[in-house]
């Protein structure tokens, strides 16, 4: 096992690699979970969540991870974040401190935000936890502005906001420590269709504006299609197809990718 997660103090911003340098190097990653024991005298079963996954993620790049439930998408995100330890293979992060430079946004902003904390405290918490010095008030104003929230949001609580705005709060928090990689796990699935586009455009803008590498996990291929340069298609814990987004959508090679694309309902404009 070779888990290399950057440790120590946060690297100064000036010490960054040139854009395009490999940040994440994932090799033959595997993760199994033991199932609860169901028979007294029989060994508990296990499920392989991720198996043989390898890829690189470069600075500023956007990578889509698509697959259905049980495909291992979320486990992969947790392995990248260091929230799970791999059973085999390695996740190497070649930037500075992983805890600071790799941040995440999850599907349900309602459960990802502490209901008893004010927005200001939520957004600045990573700075406090990671002991990042600086003008907190200025940084807060900057962050709220970057995600399109009014300055007055700072003193309010999460329940006072709509789903889309809560996701903006979660994104502001993720951006606070100036990450180089943003992991977004189904960031718009819980939102109303009419506001999804706002969050997707925000992610696209932030990526460009902050030179973020983005890992976007989604079951929605149409989202990945337009937001990601490269795609991994996962099935049963394995990557069955990987490559340039346009190429995969134009000419999917794997049977499962074709099935997935064909299953997406298209808007039919004429009856019959």
């Amino acid at each position, binding site marked *: 096992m070779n888990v290399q997660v950057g440790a120590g103090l946060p690297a100064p911003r000036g010490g960054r690699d040139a854009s395009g340098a490999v940040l994440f190097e994932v090799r033959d990653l595997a993760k199994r979970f033991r199932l609860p024991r169901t028979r007294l005298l029989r060994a508990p079963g296990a499920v392989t969540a991720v198996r043989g996954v390898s890829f690189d993620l470069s600075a500023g790049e956007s990578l889509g991870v698509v697959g*259905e*439930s049980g495909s291992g998408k979320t486990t992969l995100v947790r392995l990248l974040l260091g929230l799970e330890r791999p059973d085999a293979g390695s996740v190497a992060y070649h930037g500075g401190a992983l805890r600071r430079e790799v941040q995440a946004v999850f599907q349900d902003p309602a459960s990802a935000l502490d209901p008893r904390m004010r927005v200001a405290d939520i957004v600045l918490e990573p700075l406090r936890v990671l002991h990042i010095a600086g003008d907190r008030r200025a940084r807060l104003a900057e962050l709220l502005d970057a995600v399109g929230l009014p300055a007055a949001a700072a003193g309010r609580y999460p329940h006072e906001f*709509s*789903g*889309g*705005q809560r996701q903006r709060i979660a994104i502001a928090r993720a951006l606070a420590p100036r990450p180089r990689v943003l992991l977004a796990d189904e960031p718009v699935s819980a939102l*109303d*269709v*009419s*506001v*999804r*586009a*706002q969050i*997707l*455009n925000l992610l*696209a803008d932030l990526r460009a504006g902050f030179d973020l590498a983005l890992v976007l996990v989604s*079951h929605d*291929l*149409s*989202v990945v*299609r*337009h937001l990601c340069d490269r795609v991994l298609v996962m099935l049963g814990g394995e990557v069955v197809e990987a490559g340039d987004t346009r190429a995969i*959508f134009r000419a999917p090679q794997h049977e499962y990718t074709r*099935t*997935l*694309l064909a*299953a*997406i*309902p*298209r*808007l*039919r*404009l*004429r*009856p*019959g």
Partner: protein
Amino acid sequence: MSEALRVRGLTVSVGGLEVVRGVTFGLERGGRTGLIGESGSGKTLTALAIMGLLAEGLTARGEVRLGEEDLLRLPERRLCRLRGDRLAMVFQEPMTALNPVMRIGDQVAEPFRVHRGLSRREAHARGLELLERVRIQDAQSKLGAYPHQLSGGQRQRVMIAIAMACSPEVLLADEPTTALDVTVQAQVLDLLSRLVDEERCTLLLITHDLPVVSQLCDRVLVMYGGRIVEAGPAGEVFGRPLHPYTGGLIETIPPLDEELPGRRFRAIPGVVPGAGEFPAGCPFRNRCARADERCVEMPPLTGDGHQAACWHPL
């Protein structure tokens, strides 16, 4: 064309707040109508009001006609006899709609026992046939299983089986595939579509998913802020929407086969307001580029065949 169900002036309120407002529509016998709306649009409450299943504290007024009966005026005992027999519903989350401590076999047999008075053995035999019809693999062995032992897709097939057991005249399906993976969704929608045809059942499909409605339904109702803002044949509504909200919803669907214009996802500005926070008059006017002072007054749903409630239609 005769109507299987007619809803007239349906209003649902919580306290003094009207969350569904004067909803009127008819379901043509054997037709498939899609009811489109986002959270807070009132689409689910409309379905629950039709079923007489509104939670305590919510009241419905208006008229819901199924044949000769006005469902809103029926006593609960008579409604119980109708539900699951002439009128049935499929819910979004089968895990919460199925009974977790009751075997699948007993749950699919229940409608036959309650509504058809069959014996336990007869009802179980019919239940097994039903599970086979909804293509549950190895149906015999699933009779003794509990809901948690089935996959999400299988659970939804069981829900559909229960709903279709007594060949209802009208089936309400509320986001029946939203919790499912796309490949499973496609199979479940196929199944629903086939059964509805075979039983000549009238379908009201409630969803926020426009492509699903365009594939499955011949008519569409669009709800926003508790009101129906557009109604008409599916091809016309999606091909030539009249209400700016419908137009906005269609534009938010990212194309799969081509690039996004300007590499931007198309959004509807603003947010869906919370209950009671929609503006007076047209509920969409605070998010609408075409809105002006006229929109302070709620426009009526007008038009012939294809209707919209808008002073400044597209």
